[in-house]
C-alpha cells in the first residue's frame, strides 16, 4: 500500500514538474528603431515551456514576418535568440542566407530550436530575439555583429554567387539536361559524403599516455591571400585537441580573420570534414606579410554514425586548408570552385548553403524551376 502511494506521489510530482505551458507573451522581438527590417507579425506556433528540475526547456516554433524597409535588396539575416547567455544551451542564432528580398517586400524567418534557462531566473520575457545583422546585395551590412555574422553572411553570399555562376554556366553550355546532370552529381556527392558523429567541447583537461602531437598537412590554393605555414594538434585515439596553425598573410592588405577548414583521415585512409578553426578578434592581427597563429582550446571527438555502428574513429592524419579570409575592410576571400574540385575537396566538404538550396529546389520542383531560379540572378 505504502509503495503504491509512493509511486503515485512520484508520478504526480513528475507530471507537475514536466508540465508544458504555452509561451504566450514570453518572446521579446527587439529590432532597433533605425533597423532596415521591421516586424510585421509574430506567430508563436507550438512554442511551449517545460519545467525540468531546476531548468526550463523552451521549445521555440516562432515564425516572424519581417519587412524590408531599406532601399537595398536583402541577401541574408541573422537573429540572436537567447534565453540566457551564462551557460551552454541558452544562446543560439538563426541565419537565413541566400535571400533575395526586394525593398518593401515581406519575408518569413522561422525559429525552430530548443533553449535552456535556469528556473530561478525570474521576471522579464523568457526569450529575447535580437537582430545581429542584415547583409545587402552590395555587401553592405547593418547590425551589432556580436556573432561575427557579417563575415559568415558575406562568405555565404560569395559562395552563393560562386555556385550560381557554376550552375548557370552549365545551363548556358548544356541546357536544362546538363543542369539536371549537374544536379544529380551534386545530390550523389552530398549523399555519399563521408560523415561522422562529431563531439565538440571547450577547454577540457584530458591527458592520455597515447597522446601525441600530430602535424597538419596543408592543401594550397593558387590565389589564397593567406597561407598555412605549419600546424599541430594533440591526438589521442579518436580525439583531436588544441589545434594551432601558423598562417602568413601573403596579401598587401590587413587581415581581420581567417578560418582554417579541418579534415581528418582514418586508418583506412578515408577523409572526413572535421570542422573549422576560426581566428579573429583584436588578438589576431595579421598585417601584410606577417605571421600569426590560429588556435582554439577545444577538443573534437569522432565516431561513426549510430546507424554505422557508432564505433570511435581513430585519427591517422589531418589536413587543413584556408577556407575563408576576411580583410580589414570587410571583404572576404573564399576558394573558387575550380580550386576545390582540383583539390578533390568537393566530395568531402559540406555543400554550401546555396548548393543545398538549389539541389533542394531541383528535387522538389524539377530542372525547369531551377533554371528559372538561376536566371533571376
Amino acid at each position, binding site marked *: 500500500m505504502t509503495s503504491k502511494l509512493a509511486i503515485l506521489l512520484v508520478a504526480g510530482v513528475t507530471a507537475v514538474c514536466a508540465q508544458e505551458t504555452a509561451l504566450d507573451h514570453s518572446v521579446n522581438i527587439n529590432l532597433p528603431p533605425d533597423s532596415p527590417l521591421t516586424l510585421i507579425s509574430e506567430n508563436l506556433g507550438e512554442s511551449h515551456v517545460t519545467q525540468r528540475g531546476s531548468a526550463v*526547456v523552451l521549445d521555440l516554433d516562432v*515564425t516572424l514576418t519581417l519587412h524590408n524597409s531599406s532601399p537595398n535588396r536583402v541577401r541574408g539575416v541573422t537573429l540572436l535568440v537567447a534565453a540566457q*547567455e*551564462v*551557460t*551552454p*544551451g541558452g*544562446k*543560439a*542564432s*538563426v*541565419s*537565413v*542566407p*541566400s*535571400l533575395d528580398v526586394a525593398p518593401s517586400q515581406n*519575408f*518569413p*524567418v*522561422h525559429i*525552430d*530550436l*530548443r*533553449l*535552456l534557462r535556469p528556473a530561478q531566473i525570474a521576471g522579464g520575457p523568457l526569450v529575447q530575439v535580437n537582430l545581429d545583422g542584415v547583409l545587402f546585395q552590395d555587401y553592405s551590412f547593418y547590425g551589432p555583429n556580436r*556573432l561575427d555574422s557579417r563575415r559568415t553572411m558575406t562568405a*555565404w553570399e560569395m559562395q552563393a554567387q560562386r555556385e550560381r555562376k557554376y550552375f548557370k554556366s552549365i545551363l548556358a553550355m548544356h541546357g536544362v539536361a546538363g543542369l539536371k546532370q549537374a544536379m544529380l552529381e551534386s545530390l550523389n556527392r*552530398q549523399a555519399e559524403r563521408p560523415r561522422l*558523429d*562529431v*563531439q*565538440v*567541447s*571547450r*577547454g*577540457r*583537461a*584530458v*591527458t592520455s599516455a597515447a597522446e601525441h602531437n600530430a602535424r597538419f598537412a596543408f592543401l594550397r590554393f593558387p590565389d589564397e591571400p593567406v597561407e598555412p605555414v605549419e600546424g599541430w594538434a594533440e591526438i589521442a585515439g579518436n580525439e583531436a585537441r588544441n*589545434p594551432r596553425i601558423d598562417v602568413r598573410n601573403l596579401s598587401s592588405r590587413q587581415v581581420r580573420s581567417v578560418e582554417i577548414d*579541418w579534415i581528418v583521415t582514418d586508418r583506412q585512409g578515408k577523409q572526413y*570534414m*572535421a*570542422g*573549422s*578553426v*576560426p581566428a579573429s578578434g583584436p588578438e589576431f592581427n595579421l598585417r601584410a606579410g606577417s605571421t600569426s597563429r590560429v588556435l*582554439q582550446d*577545444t577538443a*573534437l571527438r569522432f565516431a561513426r*554514425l*549510430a*546507424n554505422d555502428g557508432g564505433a570511435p574513429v581513430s585519427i591517422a592524419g589531418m589536413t587543413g586548408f584556408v577556407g575563408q579570409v576576411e580583410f580589414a575592410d570587410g571583404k572576404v576571400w573564399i576558394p573558387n570552385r575550380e580550386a576545390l574540385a582540383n583539390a578533390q575537396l568537393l566530395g568531402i566538404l*559540406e*555543400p554550401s*548553403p*546555396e548548393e*543545398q*538550396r538549389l539541389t*533542394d529546389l531541383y528535387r522538389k520542383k524539377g530542372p525547369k524551376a531551377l533554371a528559372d531560379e538561376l536566371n533571376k540572378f
Partner: protein
Amino acid sequence: MTHPNQSTLALYAGQDLGWFTRRRTERHLTRCGDCRSEVQAFASARDNLIALDELPAISWNRLSGEMKANIRLGLAAGECVRGERTTGRVASFGFLSGARTLTACASAMALVAAGLLLQRPNPAPQPAATGDSAVWRATANGIELNQGGRTLSLLHAPSGDVTYSAGAQGSMRASYVDSDTGNMTINNLYDQ
C-alpha cells in the same frame, strides 16, 4: 618430559635465542613433534607478518633522524620554557617539563610514525577525462548538449537533408531548407 614454554619456542622460531638456550631447545625439538609443530606455526606466522609488512619505500634512516631531531628540538624548547617559567608565576606548570615533556614529544612522534606506517601506497588518481564542460554532439538525429552526464536534444533533425558542422570555437551548426518557409536556414548553437 619438560617442554620449553611458548615464548622460548617463538624466540627460537625467530632465531632470537641465546646460544645455550638454542642448543637445549634444539635437543628437545629432535625428540618432540608437538613442539616442532609449534615452532613451524610460529615461523609461518612470522613469514606472513613479514609479507604484510611490505610498506612503501620509506627512508627509515631519514625518518629516524627527523624524529630524533624533533625530540631534541622539543627538549630544547622545554628547557627554555622551564628556565623562564621558574622565574615567573607560571612556574607552577613545572609538571610539563623534563621527562614528561619528553614523553609527550615522543608520543606525538610515535603517532606521526604510526600514521606513516599505516599509510598504504594508493595508485595515483587518473586525471578526469571529462569534467562538467559542455559537450556538443552532432548526430544524425540532431544536435545534443551533454553536461554533467545529462543529455538534451537542442535541435531535432528537420525532415529533409540537414548538414551539420562543428566550429572549433565551441559551436555546432545545422543547415537545412525550412519546410515552412522554403528558406535556407542555418541554426547555430553556442557554447556560451
